């Protein structure tokens, strides 16, 4: 197997632009890796061999012509199957969209293509991004490369798994309540949810519009920052897009200096309910941060214990409306149209057959929470709790520069373990959800393995809105120390995959 697959994205980009290696060779190496291991990992729903090689060849033409290339030109990437791709299937992990080929590209996809990034294919996910394990994909679960019997996190398990299985150095995820950060944590990779409005949502199939945000996944902080810089920026097609300069995440990722910074540990995100190994690795990180010259203080965010509940009212409410369009009329599958049934019946049968149980649960829950008699008690109240959470963050950031917590309460659990217990599944996102509720940027950074199960643990770093660069600065400082301590990337410790 080519050693190209173990290289960082920034290094690959350098090799391609200098002409040492062709982008086609890089793409082919990764396609070979996918062919070898994805049978076991199942990170991809659709591999676009032809398209990938064609866009790699286009980069090589530019290299030969001496054209100026973007920072990640020729680097392969796995794209979460929730972003619309012109001419490529986009399923959102759902049967209801099986076979649908969008006639347009998401803005993020346009930016990737313009940057010469080579899209290898579409990655697996929980159906419509509802889940924390990728088990809710209609096309079968993705397996964690650290232990194939375990989940790779979710909803973006395909994106985190393809990065940690060396099938792609980069991936795009989307994060509504932790779907980039929690998978990064349980697979030993880096993932960032940018500030809400920092990356265009145009073409991102909406789960919960006021919470969704696309972001970068990679194996180290600098690669993540490079990808972040490619996809971020104002887009008039997304009304909630922020029209101001993208924070300089690349410089921050190269700086990694936290001397004199104030770092807050969120009291409510830790302790009881968090696995012992998660807590011990987190505590070590706190000590490490202090040793780098930052001041660590504990801050309290008293509304956070209600965040999960508020989230599971707001998300299903918005989702119940966003998912109404999947009715088998304009696109996607249609079920039961035998020429005798009414459109009402056919829509109902299409949706019943097309949606999995978790999607149905959340649509029913959201329909209930928005109903005339319950709106104030549920949706309205949840939106007020959301204000309280935002106020907690505002108060905290008046005292500190960034906040930290464990990304997820546990390491990767076993496939099937929580599948029919929605409440247990929802608890995986308890630490990541408040960040989405307030629209803030958050990163998950690998900080070691839990001693009891030798599985990766993630540190969550949270910054104020549009201060995404702080995530990278803090992440780079910690990463530098840990790489020195480990003698290389943590993913080097993951078992070799069979077939490779």
């Amino acid at each position, binding site marked *: 197997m080519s050693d190209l697959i173990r290289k960082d994205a920034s290094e690959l980009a350098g090799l391609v632009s200098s002409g040492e290696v062709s982008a086609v060779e890089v793409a082919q190496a990764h396609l070979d890796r996918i062919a070898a291991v994805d049978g076991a990992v199942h990170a991809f729903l659709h591999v676009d061999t032809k398209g990938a090689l064609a866009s790699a060849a286009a980069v090589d033409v530019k290299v030969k012509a001496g054209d100026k290339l973007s920072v990640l030109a020729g680097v392969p990437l796995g794209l979460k199957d929730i972003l619309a791709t012109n001419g490529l299937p986009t399923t959102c992990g759902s049967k209801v969209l099986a076979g*649908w*080929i*969008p*006639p*347009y590209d998401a803005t993020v996809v346009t930016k990737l293509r313009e940057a010469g990034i080579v899209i290898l294919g579409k990655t697996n996910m929980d159906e419509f991004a509802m889940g924390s394990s990728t088990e809710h994909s209609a096309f079968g679960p993705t397996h964690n490369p650290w232990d194939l019997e375990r989940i790779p996190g979710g909803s973006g398990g395909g994106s985190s798994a393809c990065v940690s299985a060396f099938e792609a150095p980069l991936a795009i995820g989307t994060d509504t309540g932790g779907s980039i950060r929690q998978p990064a944590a349980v697979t030993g990779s880096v993932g960032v949810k940018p500030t809400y*409005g920092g990356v265009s949502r145009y073409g991102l199939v909406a789960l919960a519009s*006021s*919470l969704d945000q696309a972001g970068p996944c990679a194996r180290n902080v600098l690669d993540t920052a490079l990808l972040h810089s490619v996809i971020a920026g104002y887009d008039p097609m997304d*009304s*909630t897009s922020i029209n101001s300069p993208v924070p300089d995440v690349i410089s921050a990722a190269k700086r990694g200096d936290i001397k004199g910074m104030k770092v807050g540990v969120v009291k409510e995100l830790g302790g009881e309910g968090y696995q012992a190994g998660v807590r011990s690795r987190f505590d070590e990180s706190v000590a490490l941060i202090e040793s780098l010259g930052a001041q660590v203080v504990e801050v309290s965010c008293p*509304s956070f*214990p*209600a965040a999960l*509940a*508020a989230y*599971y009212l707001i998300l299903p409410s918005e989702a*119940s409306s966003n998912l*109404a369009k999947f*009715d*088998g*009329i*304009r*696109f*996607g*599958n249609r079920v039961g*149209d035998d020429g005798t*049934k*009414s*459109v*009402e*019946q*056919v*829509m*109902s*049968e299409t*949706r*019943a057959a097309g*949606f999995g149980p978790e999607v*149905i*649960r959340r*649509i*029913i*829950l959201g*329909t*209930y929470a928005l*109903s005339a008699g319950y709106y104030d008690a*549920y949706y*309205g*109240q*949840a*939106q*007020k*709790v959301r*204000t*309280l959470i*935002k106020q907690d963050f505002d108060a905290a950031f008046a005292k500190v520069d960034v906040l930290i917590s464990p990304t997820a309460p546990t390491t990767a659990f076993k496939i099937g373990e929580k599948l029919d217990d*929605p*409440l247990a599944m929802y608890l995986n996102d308890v630490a990541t959800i408040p960040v989405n*509720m307030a*629209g803030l940027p958050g990163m998950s950074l690998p900080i070691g393995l839990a001693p009891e199960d030798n599985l990766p643990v993630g540190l969550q770093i949270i910054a104020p809105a549009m201060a995404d660069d702080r995530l990278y600065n803090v992440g780079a400082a910690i990463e530098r120390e840990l790489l020195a301590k480990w003698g290389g990337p943590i993913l080097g410790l993951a078992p070799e995959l069979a077939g490779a």
Partner: protein
Amino acid sequence: MSGISQEDVAHLANLARINIPTKELGHYASQLDAILNAVAVVSSLDTSNVAAMSHPVPMTNVFREDIPGVSLTAEQALSGAPAVEDERFRVPRILDEE
């Protein structure tokens, strides 16, 4: 906050246009009931002087100029449709009037 019955689930499923088989209603009802019990914690916070937050970004007045952009061709528009006739989306007979 009240519990959720099988009848409630059936009514909500109808509103949401999902044809849930009768035998599955009970399972959904008990799961939804458990979730609703858990999320009821939102009402434990004092929010009497708190405004509801609908958007995480505090911006207003985001407008587009009234300038025509690019539309799809009919072929593109209809490309994903399950049934097409006469350059239109073909749908089963409509019962309800709007």
